[in-house]
């Protein structure tokens, strides 16, 4: 069957030993048409680290993620995963290089059950491992196990996001990219998602790159953070240091810092 081709490809181990950079973005520029929406972006995610990118709407955060994930072709600069150059690869190729992705909207297959959604996350795994890995992932999310037979489209927003994360964990990604995971969620489920489920990922060895509106809560679970405005990184520091800065609000409410 033609579909099964490529399953035998071994995943490329990404990243080096702990503490080394999992993701390195250097001098990245990308955008639509010929106007770049982001310029000169340098960004690093170390192994096992949670890194949050915050900034006002239109700052270029989503563009950054798209360029990293190969949805947009960078105009200049490089994206490296461990020692592997990702620049210019297509999104499905990047997925096979052990990069998981949780999109902001349309994050689940609405007519597939929860279990099937999770299994699809392991599409690139060897056939025999798909089922067992899905079982392991469900062990991490007992809440999802209880609703394994429900259709993705029938879940609440918070449950769907958890499902999307669980699906991305199927390939035990070296890097997990989350695009505004709490967008559209009420404070309670949003808080739970960030402080319980996403924070818990840090212990599993995966490196996280997250764009998030809820800067305060996101930074609370992050090691480091980047603040973007008008297409550039304007501040970067340890998350707790950054959060304590008095001028951080200005970036969000109209007065561009930096």
């Amino acid at each position, binding site marked *: 069957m033609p579909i099964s081709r490529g399953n035998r490809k071994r995943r490329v181990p990404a990243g080096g030993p702990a503490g080394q950079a999992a993701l390195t973005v250097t001098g990245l520029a990308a955008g639509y048409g010929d106007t770049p929406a982001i310029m000169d972006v340098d960004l690093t995610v170390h192994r096992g680290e949670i890194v949050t990118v915050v900034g006002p709407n239109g700052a270029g955060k989503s563009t950054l993620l798209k360029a990293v994930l190969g949805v947009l072709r960078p105009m200049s600069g490089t994206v490296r995963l461990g020692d592997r150059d990702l620049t210019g690869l297509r999104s*499905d190729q990047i*997925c096979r290089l052990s990069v998981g992705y949780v999109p902001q909207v349309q994050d689940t*297959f609405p007519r*597939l059950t929860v279990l099937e959604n999770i299994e699809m996350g392991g599409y690139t795994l060897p056939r025999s491992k798909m089922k067992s890995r899905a079982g392991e992932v469900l062990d991490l999310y007992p809440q999802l196990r209880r609703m394994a037979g429900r259709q993705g489209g029938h879940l609440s927003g918070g449950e769907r996001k958890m499902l999307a994360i669980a699906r991305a964990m199927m390939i035990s990604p070296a890097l997990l990219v989350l695009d505004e995971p709490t967008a559209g969620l009420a404070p309670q489920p949003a808080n739970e998602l960030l402080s319980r489920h996403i924070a818990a990922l840090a212990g599993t060895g995966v490196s996280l790159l997250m764009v998030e509106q809820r800067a305060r809560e996101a930074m609370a679970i992050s090691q480091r953070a980047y603040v973007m405005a008008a297409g550039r990184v304007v501040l970067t520091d340890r998350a707790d240091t950054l959060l304590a800065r008095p001028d951080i609000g200005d970036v969000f409410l109209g007065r561009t810092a930096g």
Partner: protein
Amino acid sequence: MSQIVLSLGFGLVTASILALGAVGFTLQFGVTNLFNLAFGENMTVSMFVAYLALVSLHWNMWAAMAAGAVAGAVLSLGISRLVYLPFQRRGTSQFAMVMVTVAVSFILKNVLQMFSGATYYSYQLPPEPPIRFLGMVFDARQLAIIGLAATSLLGMHLLFKYTRLGKAMRATSDNAALARSVGIPTNRVVSAAWVLSGLLAGLAGVALAIDLGSFNSGTGGSYLLLIVAAAVFGSVGEPYGAVLGAVVIGLTSEVAAIYYPQLKDVVAFAILVLVLLLRPDGLRAGRVQMRAEVTV
């Protein structure tokens, strides 16, 4: 009463053929979003291939049917690669794509006609003794058609429910971009959908030719409308809805045939019109949806 039970029997045969076709039609629509009006000609080609296998090569009926199904699959994949895909890559509009499928159906039908003429063909199968069952009367071949449909649909169900390919097809049908982002090779999934759809078209075509007793180059094309009716009835793109549509339309049209033999198709279509008045996008439309509006 006994007459109604009797015609329910015919209805089951019709429903079986319709279900094969409607699932094939709707499966391909669900994955490719293309309303393929050349599906009927796909059926006809298979009828003729089976005829050649049967009459010229002296294969047995079931081997001939398999040959027809394979021919249907090959044709379906070939046309999608050679014609539909290039047009879709050009960004041809949804309407124009329907016209493209109409053009393909014109070409297939008339090329067939050039070789076959206007005459009717028959597999000339020997008559079978009638088998009575719960007041219904079948011959062995009709039972085989019902069995074939049941087996194929069960196979489809197992495919969709339990195999990687089947789930990947449903995932692609739900959200192709997301499917690509988890590493599903959507191009190959789309090809697989065309192959399966052609296979089912072939089975439905040969089964129809057996049931009708004779066929010509226009048989598949005119039967397509009933298939589309069944598919639209159950909301296009929903395989289980298509089976439901096939059963409802198959049974009612045969029961109606007791009273108005000339109008059996009309009754089927009247049901469709009624459904559209009540639910403009089909019965199962909107049961599960995750709208783009969630993006707020």
